[in-house]
Structures are given as C-alpha cells and as structure tokens.
C-alpha cells in the first residue's frame, strides 16, 4: 500500500504499511501516538519471566533437536576491520560444512560479513543453500547520510547479498524522531529489492524495554523482515529480557497483521546452553512457527563450535574437546 511520498535527505521515501496500519504511519505525530500507546513493559516482570523460562530443562532427544535447530539458525559472522578474503573463505567453508567429521551436521543459515567482502562469499557459497548476509547502512554506528546508507546497501545487493542487516538511527529514535527512523527503514527496504532486510535496533543503546518494544514495532511496520537485537559492537547486546520483548512484538505483530516476521539475536551468545534457552523462549513466547531459520536467527561466531561440541557429547556420551572442532 502506497501512502504518501516524503523527502528525506533528498531521497524520496514512499511510506508503506500493513493493512490496517496505514493511518498509523501517516505522519510523525500519529506514529508517535501509536508507539507510545503500546502497552508498557514492566522491567522487573519481564526479567522474572525471562529467568523463569531459563529454568526449563532440555535433555536427551529434545536437546539434540534443539542443538541442530540452533546450528540451522546460525548466521556465522565475522565483522572485523581485519577481515580478509582468506578469512571469509574459511568462514564460508565452515558454514557449508560445520563439522567435517560428521556429514549429518546441518548447515548454518547464512554467513554475515561487511559489504566489500560479499563478492568473495558469494563465490565461495555458490550452489549451497547458505545465504550471504551483509551488514550495511554505515554499520555499526549508522552515522551517515541516507544517500550513503542506500549506496552501501546497493553495493552489497549488487554484489549478491540476499540478506541485509541494517542499523537504525538510534540518535533519531532517542530524540523521538520516529518518522525519520521509519522513513529510513522504508528506503533501505526498497533498496534491498528481493533481499531480506534485518533491522538492527542496537538495544544496548535504546536502554529501556519500552524502547525495545516501540523500536520493534516501528521496524516491523516499516517492512523489516527481521528485527535484530545488536551489532555486537555495543554492550549489552542480546539479553534474555530484550529477546523476550522482541519475540512478544513479533508475535503480537503477526496476530495483528497476519504477517510473520523474524527475530535475530546477536552479540554475546557464546554457549550452546544459552542458545537452547533462547530457543525455549522462542518456542513458548512467539510460538513453534518461529522455530525455523526463516523466522529466527542467532548471530554468532564462537557459538557454532560449542553447539558442535555439545552435539558430539549427545552423540558419543562424552565431550570430544576443542581440538575436534575446526577453528576458522
């Protein structure tokens, strides 16, 4: 649905919104009223609920199932200034075959890299189902003009990225310019074309859970295919209460609009145990539809090896050890 054309930073942005929500994104004031009208989040209660879900005990077959699902949901990531084509090639090899000793190991969902290395990854992953995701929009700070951000996105997409991880303008969000944040996401979504858009909220900078809920709705209304917690460059990154609120937002958005959108948790998730706990949360909060890489991702690098080690342990009854997984 086309709503209205607005000009932002000399880029024309055409607002879109799911059916029934056209009025909400009509102008800045209405959007603010809508976001501020969402039910509040009581932090103590959200923390208690997240802690309660973390006490689920996942054993035996249900644990193996969860470990394999977690592997399938991994966006295997390297986002360093020191990244080289060689490093990215190694990462791609790991993504295609996480555990060389066990061909039954599932492949990860995607690799996630900077835009200039997309070409390398696309070549390495040709013919495999592993997607190439690229961060863009002046990641991680997002401090650039919209034109620069869109050029960044266009670069990554033209190099073959099929998933784009953008960052929102946290400065604009925190000073209440929700319309600007919305318009930027809409413009980036348009620049993505067929590529999937993950919208990074950088929840560590949004600070309150009320903000996390508002930013999640804002990103989903603007057409984000996923909402994502963090860049991994800011602490805290993904935390259980933040994940809880984002999963609630995805669930509520689906119930309200009929559109199921994904949630990606990124930053600081290193242990398989944490990943399984997050899957429990996905299962019991968003629902079992979200137990799928199409609707849930874990941004990670070191996590993958712990998932593999735990899988060895479930398979063989004993831990193999760090020399039995590959370091890339």
């Amino acid at each position: 649905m086309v709503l209205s054309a607005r000009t932002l930073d000399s880029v024309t942005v055409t607002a879109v919104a799911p059916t029934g929500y056209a009025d909400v994104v009509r102008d800045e004031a209405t959007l603010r009223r809508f976001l501020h009208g969402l039910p509040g989040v009581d932090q103590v209660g959200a923390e208690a609920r997240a802690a309660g879900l973390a006490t689920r005990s996942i054993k035996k077959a249900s644990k193996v199932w969860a470990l394999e699902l977690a592997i399938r949901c991994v966006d295997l990531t390297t986002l360093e200034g020191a990244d080289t084509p060689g490093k990215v090639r190694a990462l791609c090899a790991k993504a295609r075959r996480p555990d060389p000793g066990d061909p039954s190991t599932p492949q990860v969902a995607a690799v996630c890299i900077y835009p200039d290395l997309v070409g390398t990854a696309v070549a390495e992953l040709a013919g495999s189902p592993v997607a190439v995701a690229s961060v863009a929009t002046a990641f991680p700070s997002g401090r650039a003009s919209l034109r620069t951000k869109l050029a960044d996105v266009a670069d990554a997409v033209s190099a073959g990225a099929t998933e784009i991880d953008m960052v929102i303008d946290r400065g604009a969000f925190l000073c209440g310019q929700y319309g600007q944040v919305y318009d930027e996401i809409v413009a980036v979504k348009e620049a993505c074309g067929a590529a999937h858009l993950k919208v990074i909220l950088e929840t560590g900078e949004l600070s309150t859970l009320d903000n996390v809920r508002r930013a999640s709705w804002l990103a989903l209304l603007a057409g984000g295919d996923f909402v994502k917690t963090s860049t991994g460059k800011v602490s805290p990154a993904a935390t259980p209460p933040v994940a809880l609120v984002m999963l609630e937002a995805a669930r509520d958005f689906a119930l309200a609009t009929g559109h199921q959108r994904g949630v990606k948790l990124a930053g600081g998730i290193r242990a398989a145990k944490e990943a399984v706990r997050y899957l429990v949360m996905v299962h019991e909060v968003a629902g079992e539809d979200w137990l799928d890489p199409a609707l849930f991702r874990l941004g990670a690098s070191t996590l993958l090896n712990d998932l593999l080690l735990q899988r060895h342990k479930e398979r063989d009854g004993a831990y193999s050890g760090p020399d039995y997984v590959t370091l890339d």
Partner: protein
Amino acid sequence: MPTWEYAPAPEARETARLRESYGMFVDGEFTDGSGSGSLKTVNPATEEVLADVAVAGQADVDTAVDAARRAFDSVWGPMPGRERAKYLFRIARIVQERSRELAVLESLDNGKPIKESRDVDVPLAAAHFFYYAGWADKLRYAGLGPDPRPLGVAGQVIPWNFPLLMAAWKLAPALAAGNTCVLKPAETTPLSALVLAEICRQADLPPGVVNVLPGAGETGAAVVSHPGVDKVAFTGSTEVGKQIQRMAAGTSKRLTLELGGKAANVIFDDAPLDQAVEGIVNGIFFNQGHVCCAGSRLLVQESVYGELLDKLKRRLGTLRLGDPLDKNTDIGAINSAAQLARIRELSEAGDAEGAHRWSPDCPLPDRGFWFPPTVFTGVSQAHRIAREEIFGPVLSVLTFRTPAEAVEKANNTPYGLSAGIWTEKGSRILWMAQRLRAGVIWANTFNRFDPSSPFGGYKESGFGREGGRHGLAPYLADDGGATRSENG
C-alpha cells in the same frame, strides 16, 4: 517441522530419602507415641502410599507441651538472644544443605512442581530462619517495648499448601523471640516438617524446644486447646480458624490466625499487559492455586478485557501439567481427593450459575488428583465462584469500568488477605492501595514473598502478622507475659 517435545527431566525420587515410617518428634527424640495409631501419607500425583506416620494423641500432646515448658523454663527462655541466634543460623544453613532432599520430598508429599519447591518453598524457608536469627539478639530494638519477653509455649497448626515454608514461618519468629514450640503439620503433608525436626536435632537444638506432632484435626484441637499452651498460631481455613477463636475465648492464650482469601487482582487498561498476564498466572496457578493469598478474582477494566483475555488464554496454552518431579512441570497435582472434590463442586456451581468455563487443551494423568487450569468468564459478584475460596487452579474473571468500581468490587468480600494492582501509573497504585482492605497489596507483581515483609489479613482472613519486624509481635509481650526477662 515436528513439534519440539521436551524430554522428561525428573528429579530422582531417591533424593528425598523417603522412609517407610516416620515417628513424631517429642522432647528431642523421634517416637511412635502413645499408640494413637498412624496415618498414611500419599503422593497425590500417583495415589501411592509414601509412608506411615505416627499420629499424636492427647497423651502425646501432654508430653510434648510438658517438654516444651521444661525447655522454655530451663534452657531456651533464659538463653541469651545471641546464643539462640546461633541455633537458628545453623538450622537455616542445614536447610540449605539439604535443600534438594527437602524439595523432592515436598513435591512427593504435596504434589507441587519441583521447580516451585526448589526455587520458592525451600529457599524461602531457609531465608526465614536466617532473617529471624538476625532478630534474636535485637528484640529490644523491634519497637515492641524496652524489654520484650517471650510468651512461653507456642502451639502452632499449619496447612498442607506450603508444608515446610509454613513450618518455617511459624517456628523461626517464635524461636527467635525465645518461645518453645509444639507444631502440628497437616494430615496430608507431615513429612517435610518431620525432616525439619531432624534438622533441628542435627543443629543440636536443645530437646523440647521444637516438638512436631503429626495428626489430623483432633491432634490440632488438642494442641491449641491445651492449657499449657500460651500462644496459638494457626494458618488454615476460615472455618477452623473460627473454631479455634471460640476455643481461645476466655483463656489467657494469645492468638493469631492466617485464614482464607479471595484476592482481587485488578488490571487497569494502562497495565503492562504481558507482565500482567504473568502476574495472573503466578497469582492463581502458582502451587495449583493452593495459596491463601491467590489472586483468584481477576478484575479487568472493560476497555482492555478482550486483549487481555486473548493473551491470557494463549499463555495458559503453554502451561505444562504433569509429574511434579519433572523440572519442566508448571502445574502439579491437587493435594488430596477431598480438595479435588471441593474444587469440582465449586466449578460445577460456576457452570450452574451461568459462568463460562474455559481450560486449555490439557490431558490429565490417569492416576492421582488433577484439575486443569481453569478460567471462568462472565462471572458476577453474586456467583459462588466469586465469593467462596476455591483453593484450586480456578480463576474467576470479572470486569469493571472505573477505578472506584474496581475498589468497590475488590473490597466486596468477607476476606481481605491480599490484592494486586496492575497499572503503569504510580499515583493510581497509591490511590488504590489506600482504599483496598487487604493485608498485602502487590503492585505490578503477585505472590512475591520475602521474610522481611509482613504478611496477614483483614476481616475473615484473620489477624496478626507473620514476617518482618511485625512477625515478632505475636510472640513477645512487654508486660510480663513470661516470667523471665529477655537478656539478649
């Protein structure tokens, strides 16, 4: 994609170190008593007999009260507070050390999920002993007079819903204040109190300071009406509470009663809805609703009724009912056949009076006593399920339009134990709290307990406070209630 089934994750039953038979604990020894027979305590989740427990008769009550009197006169009363504190700290630490055993035993005997006995009952029981241990040498600073003194022998009767925790609530302040105790645990759940007695012995508590007498109503009546008992503390039904108050009338016994409740959990339209849903679940489905302060009447502002009910029903669909020993179980077994019959009877009254019953799709085990989480909508103040305490996993949903109407409906009950308020507006929380006639008022939470926070009721929910500085008052006198001065 297949559904994700959580594999069973049961705690080992052996952890409970269950024995075939248990004696009563009198004057520092476990004994079979004077031959008043025994009772069989069963696992409500399977109906299997767990153990044979000796029942205390009148002669045993006499022996226990005499032992408690001797211990009070000769050891515990004269002992400096700082010395008494050492015993209480020791009991608290042993409860922590044996926490897993106690949690499994509690879940076996009571039917409550292990995650609750493990994360709530046992840690809180230890916390009560720790908290009151700290008071034992500071009684003169409790605001109860310059030289508060213990009363003597306390006769204490506790219910089956939190067997260990209620024993801790009763024993810890009484002992800290310098009283000695004769405790009667509930007929269906005597085991954890007997292990607590064992812990008292392990802590070298002098003989007679704590006595535990299992039995049914007759044993309880013998304890509370015993002329040698100076102080009676009872937690249980309002009906029995009234009998006890009649019995105590015209005697010198001091009395505190913690009785039933029919708490209103009030949800305003500006509430944090997802957390309110958790609070509703915690309010009425915690411990299968066997909670005197349970939020059994949900009062929802009409403007948010539909949204809230949808969220609540979706959430109830994720509750896991089954084996109490499984770490993933949210809803355990109903404690007894008698209680199950009462829950059924009141639920059927709800149907008959025209309320609408809803439960999530929730298969019940074949054996044992089970009742699914149940929500009644379309309930009015005139329905029995809005007035009588069900003491089970049954929520009655009513609506209101204005804050004044919420207060009026919340207070329109003979009970007054607890209430909940859900709103993001701080001023409204204070406005409501000033008007609700309930002993405990939770704001944006429910069923949270802490030893430093007083707990108790208004109206037919009883009188006297347990927990906090206030919880010392029922066990102390500043007017020569006992013969000896507190020399802590």
